[in-house]
């Protein structure tokens, strides 16, 4: 798919991988809207990428999602591409020895990660896919997953959510393919982004780099390049492309 003048909705586009994706979409002539929960980040993005439309939206709230999709659909008349990038990274073991004895992974953290990373993807895709069907758009859904979908220690909620995203990618590809809608995934490995540095210590990052054959983290630009590649290849469908420098969890 050629991106020139395509109507694209990107979630979580103010920082990290999403910011790089936004930049590349604009460079390729797409009409871009970014939905994000960060108001100051959206202001900055609008200033840095003239022409990029921004919507304040919590993707874990289906009402906000529907409103956001409706606004972009009304403005554009159709939606060609949805990129489900918004998510939160979260690390906590299932159980651990704490000062007060054995502690369990709390239910609130579990639910929050599932709400944003898995339910948010479901809400946004169902809303956009409905518009695609309504206008008979032969569109594309790109889900940003993670290699943690295979299971990663210390990431019960995040791994489960991303495994769910992979399952949805295959399911939706099978459901929507007949209408000409592709559904694909990108699974980044550990990437050099603000969220990675926020949740992983420098010691942990050194250990991770030693386990990557290329001995480094991925760059946001490289992940964004992968997104552009799966957008442009019209026969790539229902699969999740791992971009992890050769690391397998």
């Amino acid at each position, binding site marked *: 798919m050629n991106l020139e003048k395509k109507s694209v909705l990107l979630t979580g586009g103010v920082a990290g991988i999403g910011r790089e994706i936004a930049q590349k979409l604009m460079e390729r002539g797409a009409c871009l809207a970014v939905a994000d929960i960060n108001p100051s980040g959206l202001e900055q993005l609008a200033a840095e990428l003239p022409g990029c439309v921004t919507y304040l939206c919590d993707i874990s709230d289906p009402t906000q999602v529907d409103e956001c999709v409706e606004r972009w659909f009304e403005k554009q008349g159709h939606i060609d591409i949805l990129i489900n990038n918004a998510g939160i990274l979260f690390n906590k073991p299932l159980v651990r020895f704490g000062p007060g004895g054995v502690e369990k992974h709390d239910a609130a953290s579990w639910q929050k990660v599932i709400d944003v990373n898995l339910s948010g993807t479901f809400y946004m895709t169902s809303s956009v896919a409905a518009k695609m*069907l309504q206008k008979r758009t032969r569109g594309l859904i790109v889900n940003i997953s993670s290699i943690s979908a295979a299971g990663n220690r210390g990431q019960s909620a995040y791994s489960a959510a991303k495994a769910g995203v992979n399952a949805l990618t295959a399911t939706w590809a099978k459901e929507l393919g007949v*209408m*000409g809608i592709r559904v694909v995934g990108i699974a980044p490995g550990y990437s050099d982004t603000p969220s990675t540095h926020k949740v992983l210590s420098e010691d942990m990052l050194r250990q991770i780099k030693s386990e990557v054959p290329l001995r480094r983290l991925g760059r946001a630009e490289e992940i964004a390049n992968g997104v552009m590649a799966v957008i442009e290849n019209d026969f790539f469908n229902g699969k999740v492309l791992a971009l992890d420098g050769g690391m397998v969890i």
Partner: protein
Amino acid sequence: MNDKLNTLMADLLRMDSSQVNDELTMAESDVWDSLKHMELIVTLEDEFDLELSPEDIINMMSVKAIREVLERKGIKN
């Protein structure tokens, strides 16, 4: 067109063509579900070289209704 529509429906729903008639409805069929309906729409568009609107698609819940839509689009027996 009747024969073609009946054959097409029978192939898609994996039924004997003798079982396909105007009274067959989506609601009463075990195999004609919403996913099969999308497949049906694309097949009809390809076979009869036409484009169906969302309103057409929503209305095409029986063989009779499909036949009426096709006839409105100039596809006659």
